[in-house]
């Protein structure tokens, strides 16, 4: 059954707290084996959506199914194949790391001590697992949180800000770990993060949430591919930018000190180069500048529209 249904199907979910609407009509779908990013500014409603996905809060309207099971009406079956970290994974401070994992293992059937040890090994906590978690750094607690989420070999992993407290090496390892889980085990992963670079590096698809609404969704490449963008280094910056703007080129950034500018257009860059050479502007370098997810995100969240990239929802 779990193979024929999407890992997550969120349909028109809304949630109000009193008169405040935290989430409005949010819909998206995550397929098995897909790494899906949920991004948005602070207070956009990401955590509310994630809490609704795992049954911590009830949506006011709409429905959520995990592998075909409704999270409200069939909670136990819906949550069984799910592992999750919701914000900071707070655990019992009076227990050691291992006792915390054993505690969560007792809440499921059939988790062996080998599975616990394997999860500990995967997150690199073998040497410190028998210490009280009051002695753990934030990064170690985050790793322990990941260990509790993968104890039972979930089919869907929901990670809310999983890189909090991790050092650059830990972030890199986590990225590789997430891709490994998705590619080799077919695990679906829902990732919420403020670090757009991480999302771009690891996710297949994303949804951008702002002010409680999904403003855009689609594959990561649909957000990062757009008009051709180039950086040109010239000897006469005012003349060069004037020529560019008089044609079909948009100057998006100027650097007076470096005598360079960034420009974008649907035209071939060779035509701009030709125009500049014709009026005597020397072009010493032309380089392609790729558009990042961050650029797309800022554009969408600042304008509040979704006409530029991805598909509006």
């Amino acid at each position, binding site marked *: 059954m779990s193979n024929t249904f999407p890992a997550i199907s969120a349909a028109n979910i809304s949630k109000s*707290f009193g008169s405040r609407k935290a989430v409005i009509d949010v819909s998206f779908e995550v397929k098995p084996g897909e790494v899906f990013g949920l991004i948005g500014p602070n207070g956009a409603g990401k955590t509310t959506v994630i*809490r609704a996905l*795992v*049954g*911590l*809060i*009830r949506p006011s309207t709409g429905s959520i199914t995990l592998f075909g099971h409704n999270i409200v009406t069939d*909670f*136990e*079956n819906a*949550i*069984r194949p*799910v592992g*999750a970290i*919701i*914000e*900071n*994974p*707070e*655990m*019992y401070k*009076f*227990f050691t790391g291992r*006792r915390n994992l054993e*505690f*969560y293992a*007792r*809440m*499921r059937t059939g988790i062996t001590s080998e599975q616990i040890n394997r999860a500990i090994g995967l997150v690199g906590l073998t040497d410190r697992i028998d210490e009280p978690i009051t002695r753990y750094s934030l990064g170690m607690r985050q790793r322990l*949180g990941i260990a*509790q989420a993968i104890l039972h070999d979930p089919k869907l992993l929901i990670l809310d800000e999983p890189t909090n407290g991790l050092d650059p090496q830990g972030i890199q390892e986590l990225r590789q770990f997430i891709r490994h889980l998705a590619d080799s085990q077919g695990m679906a992963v829902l990732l919420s993060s403020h670090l757009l670079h991480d999302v771009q590096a690891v996710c297949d698809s994303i949804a951008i949430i702002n002010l409680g609404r999904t403003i855009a969704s689609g594959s990561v490449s649909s957000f990062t591919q757009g008009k051709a963008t180039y950086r040109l280094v010239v000897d006469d910056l005012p003349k060069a930018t004037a020529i560019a703007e008089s044609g079909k080129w948009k100057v998006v950034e100027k650097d007076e000190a470096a005598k360079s500018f960034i420009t974008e257009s649907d035209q071939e860059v060779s035509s701009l180069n030709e125009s500049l050479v014709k009026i005597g502007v020397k072009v010493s370098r032309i380089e392609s500048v790729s558009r990042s997810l961050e650029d797309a995100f800022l554009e969408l969240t600042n304008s509040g529209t979704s006409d530029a990239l991805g598909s509006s929802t």
Partner: protein
Amino acid sequence: MIGLIYNEVSKIVAQRRFIVTLVFMTIIAIAFALLAHIIHVSGEQIPATAATSVSGGVTASSKLLFPFLFAIIIGDSVAGELSAGTMKLLLIRPVSRWKIWISKLFAAFLVCAATVLYYGICSYVALGATIGFGSWLSPLGEDNNITTSAGVATLDVYALEMASVFSIVCFFQLISTLVQTGVAAVALCAATTIVFSIVVPIVGLVAQRSPNGKYFEYFFFEHWQIASHVTNTFPAANWTITGSLVTLGIWSALFIAASITIFQLKDVKS
């Protein structure tokens, strides 16, 4: 369910305040034993032994000491997890919320019942060391026309005390389910305990003076002293053990139903 209850018990006993509470109970038991010794030596009362005094000690402690200590040990069992943020990871397991709540209730009951038993053992040892252990077969005492043996009376007191402990735990879990922070839950449980200990004697006076005052006797807190039926010192006249048990049972069922309903529908936002 056994795994869930084991989890909850392990959480309660792993906390330092549980050990502190046991130490406090030990000190209280020793202090009462020393007082009994002083009275015993002065010869002002009928000579008593540890066997004949334990039931009275437990009954007296059920008025304020036990509920107060229970408030500290288990008052934050639900609210404490909300404010510490551990509730999130607890509720995203394939276990329904009502089972989690019930496991917390049974764990709290087991731990509180064990502490009452521990207090009785401490009292017996401390009193035995100071005024002598005596025989469990000797009569409890001439006071209040009690003819049963000390052993039987102590067993009766403990059996009834368990009903009281269960009712107290149900009430405290309701408070813990209603509030959002552990500190507030413990404070509220402790405060209600103190208020009830003050109100019970007043209810007795009101009931004597006004026919309508009798209705107050149906409140649960009056019957938390159910064990005092054994020593004929129950605060409300004309109540039987069965009447008290039924009253506690109805109130406990209401507390459980209300708590589970609230817990099932609660949005976990912290």
